[in-house]
């Protein structure tokens, strides 16, 4: 399991729902076709209202015009991240755009579960609200051994919650690899 992540922050607020993460009009593309799936990267986080896109300033698109990958690879969220629909296109589009980790105060259940079982990225929870302390574009480093997030731009380190129940699945990679290790399905 990858234990260290480095990248620039993209900061969002509370209750980022799956319609904001990937608006329903875009749910028609194939997730398995290598070219077609790039559309999910292109439209990832495109439903976030402009003033809330890339806090604290806002009006900062996650994906630049004509691109399908983001310059930001660590998402900082508030409470109830990923609420709404069960669409797995939500964590998938973030992974396609290059997201490696999300750090939020709390998650909606299905989004969290999809992120873990599908192995899209590591959903982490912070000990204290971070969305108001980190700015979009800050250089971040995550250390899963120490359960810390360091903001290199501001030279501050924050504690993250341990992965808990889902650690075994994240370590295995996804639910299929976990089930193989546990002997539930043939290796």
């Amino acid at each position, binding site marked *: 399991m990858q234990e260290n992540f480095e990248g620039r922050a993209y900061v969002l607020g509370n209750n980022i729902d799956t319609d904001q993460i990937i608006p329903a009009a875009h749910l*028609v593309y194939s997730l398995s076709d290598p070219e077609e799936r790039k559309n999910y990267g292109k439209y990832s986080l495109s439903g976030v209202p402009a003033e809330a896109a890339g806090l604290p300033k806002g009006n900062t698109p996650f994906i630049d015009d004509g691109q399908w990958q983001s310059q930001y690879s660590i998402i900082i969220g508030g*409470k*109830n991240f990923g609420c709404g629909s069960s669409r797995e296109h939500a964590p998938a589009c973030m992974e396609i755009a290059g997201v490696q980790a999300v750090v939020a105060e*709390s998650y909606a259940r299905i989004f969290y579960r999809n992120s873990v079982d599908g192995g899209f990225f590591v959903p982490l929870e912070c000990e204290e609200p971070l969305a108001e302390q980190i700015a979009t574009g800050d250089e971040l480093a995550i250390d899963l051994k120490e359960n810390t997030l360091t903001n290199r731009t501001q030279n501050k380190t924050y504690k993250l919650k341990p992965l808990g129940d889902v650690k075994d699945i994240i370590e295995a990679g996804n639910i299929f690899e976990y089930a193989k290790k546990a002997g539930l399905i043939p290796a």
Partner: protein
Amino acid sequence: MAMTITEKILARHAGKTSARPGDNIWVDVDVLMTHDVCGPGAISIFKKHFGQNAKVWDREKLVIIPDHYIFTEDPHALRNVDILRDFVKEQDLPYYYDPGTDDYKGVCHVALAQEGHNRPGEVLFGTDSHTCTSGAFGMFSTGIGNTDAAFIMGTGKLWVKVPETMRFEFHGTFPPYIMAKDILLQVIGDIGCDGATYRTMEWAGDAVMQFSMEERMTLCNMAIEAGGKNSVIEADAVTEDYVKARTDKSYIIEHSDADANYFYRRSYEADKMEPVVAKPHSPDNRALARECHDVKLDRSYIGSCTGGKLTDFIAAAEILKGEKVKIDTYIVPATREVEHGIREYTIDGKTLQTIFEEAGCHIGEPSCAACLGGPKDTFGRTHGTEVVISTTNRNFPGRMGSKQSAVYLASPYTAAASALTGHVTDPREVMPARV
């Protein structure tokens, strides 16, 4: 050990005598449901992990109900239905409801009930967050993603963290202008849009048990809007009458023990409930309908798994009968069976269809339609700065299509009353005879 309905169902499906909140257990799945938006992705993951020629674990237990993007010219959306068709043929699946044929049904959560796939005591997973609707039948049901659905297709099992249960009891009698939707918006407003995260919402009390199955389904439908894992109402004679008319399969009715452990129990007086709305842009942004009297509207929308059942249209027609709507009003039956009911059910000698047509409503084909926006040519979708009152379930930014539009969630009574006035209207204003 004393247990709730949900704990009993999950324990039995894990081959255990008991299940405690927080336990991670593997359960046997009775029904897996998928549709056109998530089915193709789930099928592709299933084939990747179990092989191109793999067969699903039990062809009788996989139910495929295309319902989201049906009446559209979007080529990708139409392609996705073709993927489902090919898979159904390859796997020889008996429960598939094909668009463009007499087998087509419409919105999956309502079709599941109408086609006899909801049975007390069973475990049902669906690739749609409103799968919690089926909890109205005293069963465990919840939404999952493509990966979990693919895992079930191959194994018939899934891991579940046993949820704590929150119990909401309503005692007395609901006033005649109150619908299940009001109750739901009231409770979500009370606990917040993450107030039930990882938990079960159990509904009980004599007032709740007076609800029809359709109203119980509405009550369970929006547990996800409070973050809930599932929603459940104990099965009774009303449930059994509905289920027995639609399936010969046996089922087990579970009851919560009187001394079961709850996260908490809350009690409400049914007689004191008032019509409520959820203001933009969150289902927990509750206000009394009468407090929003100044909100001018461009559109009223009555449809979806939440507010597009026959009961919902009967309620709307009671208000619209003999009147003219002041704003664009969209009527979208959830399923063909509901559509049939709209054509057959009469009030004072007029069918609901006639009442809606004479009132000046637009009537669409059964599907999820504009509840979630969808492709540009979707019936009822917003494209600008429309202010909409809707019987649907979510009012997130852009949910009904345009990021600039704003959605007020309400009951069919309130949506119909507001259609007549052009502003958010407490149904009591236009239905004095019933108050």
